[in-house]
């Protein structure tokens, strides 16, 4: 069998730390080869080695059977290796064609021949079914379309091997389907693909073979249709993973959070939460299912004190929280795992230790008489690192340096350790791998089992159905339905989330 690209026993060190250790990846011509690993396992490092951004300490790279030295990305380009980056490298106010030819402009007597280039771009787009308008301006087109421009860019430069780095991270479900289709087209035209991802369903859907790496080490390569998501997951994290979250029946108690007729406006003074009613009981997880932009953010901000309410009440165990300060609300017993962990959850330039006391730094034992006691902060931080398995070099490391999953564990540790009566978890597993997701779900359920109220907001139906005891569907700023997960199907919930109230049969008329 002929291999297009072979990376043999690659090792890459940063200081004394092995980011890649003895990894072998062999890409056959015409296959989709998935590269699977947890966040921080070393997938991106390996691909950056192939793309010429890093030089490996050990190992050899062969392209079409010939040993090569890829010293920089230009050499990778010349060898026919193209990368579709996770964060697009596009100039927003230039057109599709201008972006594609950037740095490689075809000229006619010193003038850029844009017509010629547009024609060529249109041809390639046609060939692979990309449906990109060559003269559209980047800032006017959707994220999915921008990604196709990235794909076009590599093809225009003659790529035979395409590396996709977490390509579905910012796409809608429909765009993901379309991308999968495009990948098949590419394969049909004789290209080969390396797909970096930690999403198992994508791997099952589109790949031929999978190479798994764990903590920087190559675990092996398996053929996709002889494997299963369960096997891949356990290979990736190094232990058995349960997909169905284990939990006992909930024993809900008194009402904890009681929201009545809540109205909240966004920054443009448009009502986003409209007369919303919601109750969460002690010992219960209520999951809010809904499509992004139906008032979830404004609802959370109102409960946590970051946004003023227009009218209505928010009560927690007898206290009125509406329009209170964030500190007062925190002290009343609300914990919050925010939607955007970099913006609201952490001070990235602060150490892990400082972040662990971000809300409690002013209390004893962390400070007394206005003077901080950093010994106590360290002690506390180490407890959280230990108990919540935060993988870090220590409490002095900056939060910025942690992987997404570990940042999230740090936040959860901080919030849960305050033992809040109500824990709000907004998209707590976004961007995390299976192992971290499992850990976080367990912690939410544990909190419930300790008799606390948990409010989960998620855009992933799987998550809401798996973890919640009660599902509240939000649409256009209102809770349109409240169901038990065992009484609902994904189809029904999907229709409710799209605003089809009542029986699904009648829904089509709306």
């Amino acid at each position, binding site marked *: 069998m002929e291999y297009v690209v072979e990376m043999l026993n690659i090792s890459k060190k940063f200081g004394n730390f092995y980011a890649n250790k003895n990894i072998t990846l062999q890409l056959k011509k015409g296959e989709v080869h998935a590269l699977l690993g947890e966040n921080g396992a070393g997938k991106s490092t390996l691909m950056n080695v192939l793309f010429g951004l890093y030089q490996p300490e050990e190992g050899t790279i062969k392209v079409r059977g010939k040993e090569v030295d890829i010293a920089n990305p230009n050499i990778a380009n010349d060898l026919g290796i193209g990368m579709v980056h996770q964060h697009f490298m596009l100039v927003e106010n230039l057109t599709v064609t201008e972006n594609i030819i950037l740095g490689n402009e075809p000229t006619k007597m010193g003038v850029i021949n844009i017509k010629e280039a547009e024609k060529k771009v249109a041809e390639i787009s046609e060939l692979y079914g990309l449906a990109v308008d060559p003269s559209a301006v980047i800032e006017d087109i959707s994220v999915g379309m921008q990604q196709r421009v990235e794909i076009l860019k590599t093809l225009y430069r003659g790529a035979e091997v395409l590396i996709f780095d977490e390509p579905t991270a910012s796409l809608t479900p429909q765009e993901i389907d379309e991308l999968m289709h495009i990948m098949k087209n590419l394969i049909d035209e004789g290209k080969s693909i390396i797909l970096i991802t930690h999403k198992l369903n994508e791997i099952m859907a589109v790949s031929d073979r999978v190479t798994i790496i764990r903590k920087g080490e190559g675990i092996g390569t398996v053929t996709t249709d002889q494997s299963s998501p369960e096997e891949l997951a356990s290979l990736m994290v190094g232990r058995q993973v349960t997909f169905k979250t284990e939990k006992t029946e909930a024993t809900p108690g008194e009402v904890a959070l009681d929201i009545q007729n809540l109205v909240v406006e966004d920054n443009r003074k448009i009502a986003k939460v409209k007369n919303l009613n919601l109750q969460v009981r002690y010992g219960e997880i209520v999951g809010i299912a809904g499509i992004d932009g139906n008032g979830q953010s404004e609802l959370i901000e109102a409960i946590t004190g*970051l946004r003023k309410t227009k009218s209505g009440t928010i009560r927690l165990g007898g206290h009125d929280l509406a329009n209170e300060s964030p500190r007062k609300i925190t002290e009343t017993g609300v914990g919050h795992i*925010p939607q955007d962990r970099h913006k*609201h959850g952490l001070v990235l330039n602060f150490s892990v230790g*400082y972040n662990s006391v971000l809300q409690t*730094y002013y209390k004893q034992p962390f400070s007394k008489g206005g*003077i*901080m006691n950093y010994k106590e902060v360290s002690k506390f931080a180490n407890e959280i690192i230990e108990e919540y398995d935060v993988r870090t070099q220590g409490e002095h490391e900056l939060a910025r340096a942690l992987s997404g999953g570990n940042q999230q564990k740090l936040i959860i540790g901080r919030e849960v350790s305050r033992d809040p009566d109500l824990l709000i978890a907004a998209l707590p597993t976004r961007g995390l791998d299976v192992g971290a997701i499992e850990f976080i779900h367990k912690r939410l359920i544990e909190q419930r089992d300790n008799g606390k109220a948990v409010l989960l907001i998620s855009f992933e139906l799987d998550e809401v159905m798996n973890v919640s005891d009660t599902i509240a569907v939000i649409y256009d700023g209102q809770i349109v339905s409240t169901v038990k997960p065992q009484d609902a199907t994904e189809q029904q919930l999907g229709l409710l989330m799209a605003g089809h109230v009542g029986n699904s049969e009648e829904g089509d008329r709306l």
Partner: protein
Amino acid sequence: MKSKFNSKSILVPLISIVLGLLIGAIIMWLSGYDAIKGYVALWNGIFGDAYAMGETVRQIAPYILAGLAVAFAFRTGLFNIGVEGQLLVGWFAAAYVGTTFELPTIIHLPLALLAAAAAGALWAFLPGLLKATLQVHEVIVTIMMNYIALHVVNALIKASSGTYKTETIHDSASLRSPFLEQLTDYSTLHYGFIVAILMVIFMWFLLERTKTGFELKAVGFNDHASQYAGMNVKKNIIVSMMISGGFAGLAGAMEGLGTFGYITESTDFTGIGFDGIAVALLGANTPIGVLFGAILFGSLKYGSLNMPNAAGVPIEIVSIVIALIIFFVASGYIIRVFLEKMSKKKEAK
């Protein structure tokens, strides 16, 4: 955190200074002046005798305080360009309290220092308030407040003394020290440098050891997360500007209670406030860094005054040479990258 101090952190500034001196020498040589003679004059201007050393240390003190003012605001996410104006109002307040009251030293001197700090803080309060409540950018407001300060202070001098200059302050409010003057061959060295060093320690303590410091730094790095964590972001912005202004006011007190003992009407800024920006950036906005930055800045500024007289290098060339040295220190990044490349090559071999 541990690796903060290694051989590089000393090597980089050293190489920078040497490079700056070399290029400065080339400039002097190309302009037809004796570079060696020029640098000997610079050296003598700084360390030549007790008098020069006294004057150098005296010059460093206001630079430390102006540097702290800029650095403190910077650490909390604010850019205080108004140090110059805050310094002027502080200078006037110090001189006013120094001349108006007659009190025992133990009360009078602290009171005069406090008045200077309070005046600076008050002058910085307004930009802080505007930033916190109306999101008016502090750079614009502080720059404009500088001009207002210059002319308001001129008017206040005239109104309070009837002439272009206030009376000299009472001895009980003075930072002057016959002991230090004697020690340094009758230079104008005064106790101000002790105040400045105390403030270096104060800033370190405030940022690294207190609850307020924790909040100020958090807000500076990420105001969203700080607000979410229950901190009062608006209050922190105002407090930060006022503390910064307080440092600037004390820089003014160095002149009002130490070097001059009075304040005169002026048509132009002192420049110390603006140099404070460079000092803060040289010192990477840390208190100890500001101390070193101020020592470098103050020494060069004072020592270079000796170059026209002793070596015949015109003041214009001197300014270029000094600017080059500071430029190279500030661009230490280039040297750091160079050193890293060198050590990488060594490793590869």
